[in-house]
């Protein structure tokens, strides 16, 4: 019993010592967590805006980020009622959501840009091929018509020569 109680006393002493000397920290920690979460949300919003401007689908990400904003506001309410542990938990959750939105928005933006570049290359390729095909088709048609005309003229000359031969 004595052997068990000693570590308990020791732990209690350490805890009390720490509590006495760092009791101001939860408020500062909560404030820091809230500030970090707000920065993460601002950063995620910037990534979301960039993804949106490239035409990427962001509806689900927008919903998630608004959820993070709601959590951050709840964290602020908890902070105002001095419920610092809840404020820290909510702010950290908001930050985690914002970070994941940020990562996903950047990935979707990159994927959309690659897709758009591929589409542009295909369009340019199709235009170039169409121009070449039109050019070669038109030259062939014109050459064919010229050959036909030449053949017709040759035939006319031959007929005219034959008629002249018959007359003489």
């Amino acid at each position, binding site marked *: 019993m004595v052997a068990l109680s000693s570590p308990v006393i020791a732990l209690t002493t350490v805890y009390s010592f720490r509590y006495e000397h760092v009791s101001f920290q939860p408020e500062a920690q909560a404030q820091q967590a809230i500030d970090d979460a707000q920065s993460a949300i601002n950063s995620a919003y910037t990534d979301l805006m960039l993804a*949106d401007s490239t035409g990427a689908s962001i509806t689900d990400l*927008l919903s998630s980020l608004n959820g993070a904003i709601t959590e951050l506001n709840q964290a602020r309410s908890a902070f105002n009622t001095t419920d610092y542990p809840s404020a820290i938990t909510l702010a950290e959750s908001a930050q985690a959501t914002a970070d994941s939105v940020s990562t996903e928005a950047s990935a979707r933006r990159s994927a959309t840009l690659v897709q758009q570049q591929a589409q542009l290359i295909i369009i340019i390729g199709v235009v170039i091929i169409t121009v070449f095909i039109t050019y070669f088709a038109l030259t062939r048609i014109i050459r064919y018509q010229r050959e036909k005309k030449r053949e017709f003229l040759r035939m006319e000359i031959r007929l005219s020569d034959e008629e002249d031969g018959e007359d003489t």
Partner: protein
Amino acid sequence: MKKYTQTILTLLMIGLAVATGTLLVSVWLLPPPEHTAVIAMLNEDMEAGPYPTNVTQYSNISLNIEVYNYLGVVQYFYVRTKLANQTTMANATTPSSAPIILQSDRILAHGERWVIPIELNMTATGTNFRLTFELWHYNPSQDDIIWVRNQRGEGLWVHLPLNVTGP
């Protein structure tokens, strides 16, 4: 043969020039899309009036604030509620200098609508209050929250003239 090739190439070039010209002229002639945001005040029945302009102290004021995003891209909006008076009220160029009593924030997609229910209990008494709702947004390039302005450069806000009398 050379003459025909030149003719074909000339025709192709003319066709290309005409197509490009038509495209550019149509782009220039079309009016540019108007990029703006909207903030509006509705009463508790979601109607544009009548509003509770004369209330007694400690009574609740119920309103709804409506925000639309037509800025062409997703926006991080803030609606700041302030209880101003005639000297601290907002005007077209300057937001109200009264302190923020309530703030709501949300990210809206282009074309999205946001309705914020407002419930306030008036503890102060007085006349000619202006319960002001200003629309702000986060600007990533400035890393700051700035007042949303329309194309004429005027800030976006709505207010409710308010008289609060003793119970």
